[in-house]
């Protein structure tokens, strides 16, 4: 059975390590915050100028001066800090953020990613996505394995305008966990109950399958 959004987030949370600074993109990535293992110290970075995002505020504590990169009201934790956008992207570009999780429209077998523009349809701008994918030390893409029409989003070559080239290291979809080796997708784990055949069918790009592929443990 393929994972729902929370399942994908839960699996990505297993990639976290104690002390990590993490930037979570809009959508599924945001949900990862709900599954940080108890006792693990993970600090969330918001590229609009906050290190140490807390949970959403109670109604009476909503503060217009305190939002995340998705423009949602948030809170901040003890040990948080605020700073300007140049410093914020310095953290990303300088490799200080340990992990970036973001969504995508397409990923290619060489690690290229398309996530910001559908010509003629969606041209809202790249925001901080190009900076994140070009500079982050470690990038995990969280997305559905196929689009609504069943077309694979793991391609030989991206068809949409690129956000960045050769940057994606790992992909977690509703069907699988895959590593981007540089010229192929290497299947690491299957979603519970999903077969290798199903993943093969849903993957257009080169897929490497070595040995027994374990089920995710979530």
């Amino acid at each position: 059975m393929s994972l729902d959004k929370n399942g994908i987030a839960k699996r990505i949370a297993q990639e976290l390590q104690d002390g990590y600074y993490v930037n979570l993109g809009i959508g599924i990535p945001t949900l990862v915050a709900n599954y940080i293992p108890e006792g693990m110290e993970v600090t969330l970075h918001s590229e609009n100028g906050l290190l140490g995002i807390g949970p959403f505020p109670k109604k009476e504590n909503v503060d217009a001066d305190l939002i995340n990169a998705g423009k949602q009201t948030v809170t901040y934790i003890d040990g948080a800090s605020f700073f300007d956008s140049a410093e914020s992207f310095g953290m990303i570009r300088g490799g200080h953020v340990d992990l970036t999780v973001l969504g995508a429209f397409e990923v290619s077998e060489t690690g290229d990613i398309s996530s910001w523009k559908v010509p003629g349809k969606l041209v809202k701008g790249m925001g901080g996505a190009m900076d994140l994918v070009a500079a982050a030390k470690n990038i995990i893409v969280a997305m559905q394995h196929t689009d609504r029409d069943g077309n694979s989003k793991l391609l030989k070559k991206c068809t949409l305008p690129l956000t960045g080239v050769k940057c994606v290291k790992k992909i977690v979809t509703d069907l699988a966990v895959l590593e981007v080796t540089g010229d192929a997708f290497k299947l690491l784990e299957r979603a519970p109950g999903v077969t290798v055949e199903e993943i093969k069918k849903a993957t257009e790009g080169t897929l490497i399958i070595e040995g027994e592929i374990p089920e995710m443990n979530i």
Partner: protein
Amino acid sequence: MRKVVNNAQEAIVGIKDGMTLMLGGFGLCGIPENCLDALVDTEVKGLTCISNNAGIDNVGLGKLLRKSQVKKMMSSYIGENKEFERQMFSGELEVELIPQGTLAERIRAGGAGIPAFFVPAGYGTEVQGDKEVREFNGKMHVMEMGLRADFAIVKAWKGDTAGNLIYRHTANNFNNMMAAAGIITIAEVEELVPAGELDPNCIHTPGIFVQRIFQGVDYKKQIEFVTTSE
């Protein structure tokens, strides 16, 4: 020199057709509401506006767009702004989309007298265009240019008569860099105090960058997405 002016109308004197403006804020957070309203009340047009976003329909920069006072936007994200999208697709509005970190760094570089620098963002994408690219440390980079503006208009939490500014929480965002990148910088603040009252160790924008300052009124501080827990 008196930096203190009475209000937004006085502060924006000298902004003329065709000028380049920088406008602080991220979404609707930390935008110079008073000056934006004052600009909408003028007939100034043909503006190039450098701002991370363009407000939303009829809020913030959205008002200037609706009145067709803007010729060109330089932004990273349009956001939820239908009028912006309409003008962009119709060709009325010229739009240069710039990666957010590159935009922030270009503004910072402009204020700091750095004409050009290299970043990895945008390499291999349409942002690269015909920009110079070069490899450093085994990685490809794009050369980007510093940005300045005829006027930078920023919003701060506290300010003093010497022009020093302190921002609150995530309302800092692009304001701090823009303050340094304006040929003339206008700061509107929620609270204006005499020089000497702010902790000199806690100043975000030193007064040297600010030419005009005033205490704003009637801040609406609209929120795009109110999200709460419990």
